[in-house]
């Protein structure tokens, strides 16, 4: 049992920290594949990474239903911390979630189970935040799409290994689709729904 007395604290300076984190995530979304750093740090509970915690404090509130993967939702540290600091309701049904937090990418459910938005409101889709091992080393991916001048190269070790194959469903769904944010410690890379992987090295 975690008591409030053991919860890690939130941002020391709420406004400036949230603004700075928002800027990092926005830059990551605007330039898919580029690695952005999250500077302000808050305490992170359990297996949640520092970057994920900062994003949670910045983007989550009582209007954003939240879906947690099995490992996150089993940890009372994580659920209590999220409840205390963000007030976001945790839902079991991933198809109504505004955000999904995934700590174990290997157990990522099929992406069709998340909210895909509607043609009228494509913004009502789930943003999936996946914690990965590294965004500087590992397999290299070549990305193309809006926000990328030519080709962007991303080196990352990501689970699930077939994440980009799964994301190909975005091609058919557009303007609906899933946006993905990859987090490794304090590094963030966004893969919005318009980004395509053109080739993969080993």
């Amino acid at each position, binding site marked *: 049992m975690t008591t*409030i*007395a*053991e*919860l890690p*604290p*939130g*941002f*020391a300076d*709420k406004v400036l920290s949230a603004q700075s984190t928002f800027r990092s995530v926005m830059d990551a979304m605007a330039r898919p594949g580029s690695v952005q750093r999250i500077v302000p740090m808050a305490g992170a509970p359990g297996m949640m990474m520092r970057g994920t915690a900062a994003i949670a404090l910045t983007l989550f509130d009582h209007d954003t239903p939240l879906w947690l993967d099995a490992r996150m939702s089993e940890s009372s540290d994580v659920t209590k911390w999220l409840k*205390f600091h963000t007030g976001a309701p945790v839902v079991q049904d991933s198809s109504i979630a505004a955000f999904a937090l995934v700590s174990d990418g290997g157990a990522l459910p099929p992406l069709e189970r998340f909210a895909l938005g509607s043609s009228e409101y494509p913004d009502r889709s789930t943003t999936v935040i996946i914690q990965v091992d590294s965004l500087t080393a590992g397999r290299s991916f070549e990305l193309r799409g809006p926000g990328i001048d030519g080709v962007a190269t991303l080196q990352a070790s990501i689970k699930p290994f077939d994440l980009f194959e799964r994301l190909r469903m975005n091609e058919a769904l557009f303007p609906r689709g899933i946006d993905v944010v990859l987090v490794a410690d304090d590094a963030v890379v966004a893969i919005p729904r318009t980004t395509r992987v053109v080739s993969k090295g080993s």
Partner: protein
Amino acid sequence: MKLSIIIDNFGSASFVKDAVDPVTPHNTQQAQRKAAMAVLAHAEAGEIAARLRNLALPAHQDLRTPENGLVMLRGRVGGDGAPFNLGEATVSRAAVRLASGEVGFGYTLGRDSEKARLIALCDALVQSRDFGPAVERDVIAPLREQLTVRQKQAAAETAATKVDFYTMVRGEG
């Protein structure tokens, strides 16, 4: 009109204090915190800070930095009738944790974030075995006294303007 919440009602807050079971330790502490909160919510931030300055405070951190928000105030028609939404009030809140683990919460009407933080700090100190008595003696008791004096004075000033209406009996027969 009587409001259904006691957020700004010292009279009913202290009434609740007297009503709880004074035997079990849990309730005593709850009652103590409630009574302290009722006093602190009415004090000025500067007064609380000035009194806390005389104490050697333990290390503490902001678990939740002060933030402002709105709460819906609900009233009841005639005091006990159907509930209705009276309007929204600005409220500041904060949470502070002492190094020894006690967590204090502060809520206060208005936008004074520093006051919310000081109330949270006092609430944490009240729960602490080492600092509880000192805070009660040096911070809360003097503030309570001030508050009582202010309330009595206001009541006396109001009472002086009281008008008794009566009907003169005239026209015998």
